[in-house]
């Protein structure tokens, strides 16, 4: 399997892909409706039980690390340099001042990335690509588009294998792949030219095969994978709808009186990302170091 799909038996897995796609749309919409750091943070935490429910906590944490990199960069750089900030909050290295407004801006942006990322990861990890394709077809998406989506999973490993063969073949013809950077960049041409040609030939051949498998035939198509919207899906959709209504209500009538965002919250979330980021760096360095001296594993 080349996708991120985690075959597990959970409530989230058994939802219809269409429900999950709507869920992602809902999360994206919510992240824009709730443009307040505190509310977004609450939302992010509220999404976590779903991750637990889908039994993908560990792979989720691994993939969310990369999004955290963005969060750290955005929060730090925007917090200091964004010109909209006027009210200083605290200072580091005697001159770099974090300002309230810019921190709010940066937090909203980075939490939005994390929230949307969480939903996307949840979707990708719990939905089989083929299910997604057949669900798309049910939404009247052209069959060929669904096929393109699906075939990427198949064609990437094949191309990777071809690339390895081409590289080895060119190395056998004395192509220097370990030289200086400039040399290596120059060598991309003899690497990629054959690879492109091979790929085009393969795709060409695949198009004949598809033609022989009646791909362009008019009329109704059927699918082996069955996706059905059941009562669970309706419950989930209703929940989402209710939540959305609540958000809009919150946004329209409560924003004046509800002020959760404070200096402390912003500072702590900034420190939080720094600490987690610090752990990631330490882990990375330790791994590198182990590789250098140990080499056993």
């Amino acid at each position, binding site marked *: 399997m080349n996708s991120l799909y985690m075959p597990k038996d959970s409530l989230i897995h058994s939802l219809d892909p269409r429900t999950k796609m709507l869920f992602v749309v809902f999360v994206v919409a919510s992240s824009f409706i709730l443009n307040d750091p505190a509310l977004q943070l609450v939302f992010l935490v509220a999404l976590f039980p779903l991750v637990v429910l889908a039994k993908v906590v560990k792979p989720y944490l691994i993939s969310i690390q990369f999004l955290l990199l963005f969060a750290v960069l955005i929060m730090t750089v925007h917090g200091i340099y964004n010109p909209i900030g006027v009210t200083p909050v605290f200072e580091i290295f005697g001159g770099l001042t974090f300002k309230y407004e810019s921190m709010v801006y940066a937090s909203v942006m980075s939490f939005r990335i994390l929230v949307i990322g969480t939903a996307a990861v949840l979707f990708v990890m719990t939905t089989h690509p083929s299910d997604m394709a057949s669900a798309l077809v049910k939404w009247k998406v052209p069959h060929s588009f669904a096929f393109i989506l*699906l075939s990427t999973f*198949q064609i990437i490993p094949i191309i990777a294998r071809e690339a390895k063969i081409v590289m080895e073949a060119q190395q056998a013809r004395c192509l220097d792949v370990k030289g200086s950077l400039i040399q290596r960049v120059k060598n991309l041409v003899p690497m990629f030219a054959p690879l492109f040609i091979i790929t085009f030939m393969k795709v060409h*051949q695949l198009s*004949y095969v598809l*033609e022989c498998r*009646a791909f362009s035939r008019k009329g109704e198509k059927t699918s*082996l994978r069955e996706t059905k919207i059941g009562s669970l899906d309706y419950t989930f959709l209703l929940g989402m709808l209710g939540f959305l209504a609540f958000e809009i209500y919150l946004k329209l009538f409560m924003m004046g009186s509800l002020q959760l965002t404070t200096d402390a919250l912003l500072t702590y979330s900034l420190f939080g990302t720094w600490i987690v980021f610090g752990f990631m760096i330490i882990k990375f360095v330790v791994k590198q170091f182990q590789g250098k001296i140990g080499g056993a594993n």
Partner: protein
Amino acid sequence: MAAKAIEVNNLTFSYPDTDEPVLKDINFSINHGEILGIIGPTGAGKSTLAMCVNGLVPQVINGEMEGTVKVNGSKVSESSVAKMSEEVGFVFQEPENQLSQMTIEEEIAFGMGNLGVPRDEMLGRITHALDQVGLTGFEKRSPLALSGGQQQRLAIAAVLAMRPSIMIMDEPTSMLDPKGKNEVYDVLKNLKDYGMTGIIIDHEVERIAAYCDKVLVLHEGEVQMFAPSDEVFTNIRQLHELTLNAPQVTEFLASYNQTFGKDVKLSTTLEESVNNFESACK
């Protein structure tokens, strides 16, 4: 008289970028339930001929075509490749290029899905097709995790599940090891039991001689021989002129006859050759 399974009349075809046609005035026909082997040197136009039968040439692969190709009595040029696929299945040379789905059962279901086969029937056909090619139990695996021979059998199963009446295999075994070749030919043999008509292009004369009813020898776009396989392979002199070989046993008997001035009856099967040789030596 019932229509022939495949009927090719005065077929001439040339690719746009060449002066000389790849196929010159081809005529042949095969009956239902027969298996035809096409042999000939590389570049003789074997694949082009096969692709004319299901309409890939000239509908997808362009070129100039004259003459008619009829499948089950109707002209190929009057329907589309997708439509033809209901009657003619095509297996290509490279196994890997024919796979596009994530699991084996989906791979087989893909063609059926395009034909609009209901899901319940699909499941039955998948089981049956996998059974026909000996891949039962592999349903949930990824096609990329299979060996070459298994992949090729999967490609055959995917075509079989579409239930065509004619099956064309274009060098299905050239990428495979001997075991894989046997696997593919065993499937071919089974086709006959299901009453299907088959065309196979290959360089394996031994296996062609053993499995095919008729053999068509193509050389530079022209039909040089078209006869039952025994007749073709015992005509050793002409085969040699076309840089082709007969099965080893036939070659042996011919060479024996020539060297020692004997007149042993030629045969393409091992058993018969042994008997012929034994009775001649007495």
